[in-house]
């Protein structure tokens, strides 16, 4: 991990002339505050996955730098990306260092990667409930086989490996159905207008 990373990240926000990638000052400021706010949570997220505090700090630091590359993107998207990149970085580091032992936790699930953190007021809560209702309706419209595998993963909490052995299919086939389910959900939610990101 490069030394002085934290100082770097802070300085980018303070000095607009040192921004070669062309984001506006307000973009920089919001990205910086996002990273500052999420940093300790990402560290905790990684510790929950078995990293020591020091390793988690390192991984979070490197991930923050990588997230900076997408600074023109909306903050909510970057927040999700921060966790994903942290998880990926952790997996890469672990694979380099030891075995692939802890790699079964590849998904962002268990803290909802802060998706709920902003839903403190009643209006946001209500809009999330509406969104959930749309996702529910869209789930019911999935083709039966696809829906079953997707629910085994999402609702029953089974890993790809568990699903594969339960259903007698390959891990690759599980991945395909998960991907298909998500693509169909996106289409259904777009039709219902006002779905996530619409």
């Amino acid at each position, binding site marked *: 991990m490069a030394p002085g990373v934290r100082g770097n990240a802070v300085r980018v926000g303070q000095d607009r002339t040192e921004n070669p990638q062309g984001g506006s000052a307000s973009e920089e400021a919001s990205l910086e505050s996002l990273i500052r706010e999420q940093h300790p949570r990402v560290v905790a997220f990684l510790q929950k996955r078995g990293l020591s505090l020091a390793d988690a700090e390192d991984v979070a630091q490197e991930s923050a730098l990588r997230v900076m590359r*997408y600074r*023109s*993107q909306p903050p909510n*998207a*970057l*927040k*999700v*990306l921060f966790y*994903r990149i942290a*998880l*990926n970085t952790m*997996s*890469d580091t672990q*694979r380099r260092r030891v075995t692939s032992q802890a*790699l*079964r936790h*590849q*998904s962002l*699930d268990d803290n*909802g*990667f802060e*998706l709920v953190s902003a839903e403190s007021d009643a209006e946001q809560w209500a809009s999330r409930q509406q969104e*959930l*209702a749309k*996702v*529910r*309706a*869209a*789930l*019911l*419209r999935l083709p039966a086989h696809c*829906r*079953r*595998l*997707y*629910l085994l993963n*999402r*609702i*029953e*909490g089974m*890993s*790809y*490996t568990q*699903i594969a052995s*339960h*259903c*007698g299919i390959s*891990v690759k086939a599980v*991945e395909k159905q*998960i*991907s*298909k389910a*998500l*693509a169909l*959900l*996106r289409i259904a*939610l777009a039709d219902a207008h006002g*779905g*996530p*990101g619409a």
Partner: protein
Amino acid sequence: MASARTGIDTAEAWVARLSSPECSAQDRAEFERWLERSPGNVQAYADAERIHYLASALAGDPGIAALGRAARRETDPSARSRRRWYLPLAFASIALLALGLSYLGVFRSAPEESAQQYATAIGERRTVVLADGSRLTLDADTRLETAFAATARRIRLAGGRIDLDAAHDVRRPLVVEAGNGAIRVTGTAFQVERTAHGTSVGLLRGQVEVSAGGVSLTLHPGQLVAYDEHGRMGVPGPLDVKASEGWKRGLLILDNRRLDALLEEMNRYSDTRLTLAQPELGAIAISGTFRVDDRRALLDALREGWGIRAVQAEPDHIELTRAP
């Protein structure tokens, strides 16, 4: 643009790949190259992760949770041939004496003093007082026959649902036959429902003995037990007392009722049949209180809450579908 190596070019495919135990370090590196390739990719990725997360947040939804459990069963190759019964019953492994069936034998040979048939039309509910003083309430679309002899009282439920407040008479036990089983009563209040799937018995007061398929068990107040058309007995569970009192007042009080069982019940109250276009919708669990004669409210709730649409298939047939 798809990567030549991974072939992945959608956000959804990336979410699916990144959660796979087969995801490699090369895949992860390729993922970041994909993000940089187009400005929309980061947002698309975040949206897909959010949908993925919201789907898991539905685990607390009773209907989706039921579908999840159903998915586990339906994808288990070793269980696929097993028949499913409409209540989540674990079948009792107790082998008891076949008392119930021997009762039936006795009654069939006994001379019958008075035989009487009762039936209610669709939408009709009726309470009658039987010759022995027992109070019998028939729900809509119910058919039964009573036969009272010197040594026994017998009610044969052909279909529908009854509530019986039985007069006490130790010398003349009362037996309700329904489907492939029987319920033996002394003095007691209970309900029997017979549907296409099987028979369920709920006890409000007193004690009854339920026999089916060579198994008999004693039901205690507040309990419900079901047996299927093959006489296979389930394990007694709690009776929903509110719901079992509700139908007598024209209310359907639902607490996680399966949709297929609910429709069967609704169909007792109208000549227009409600059916499911996709049988798997039957597993959805519904909660709430509806008037039996207010289908509109139910259909609206199904549409709002579940995205299930009602389609008028024929003048007297409404089909429920979740097709887009």
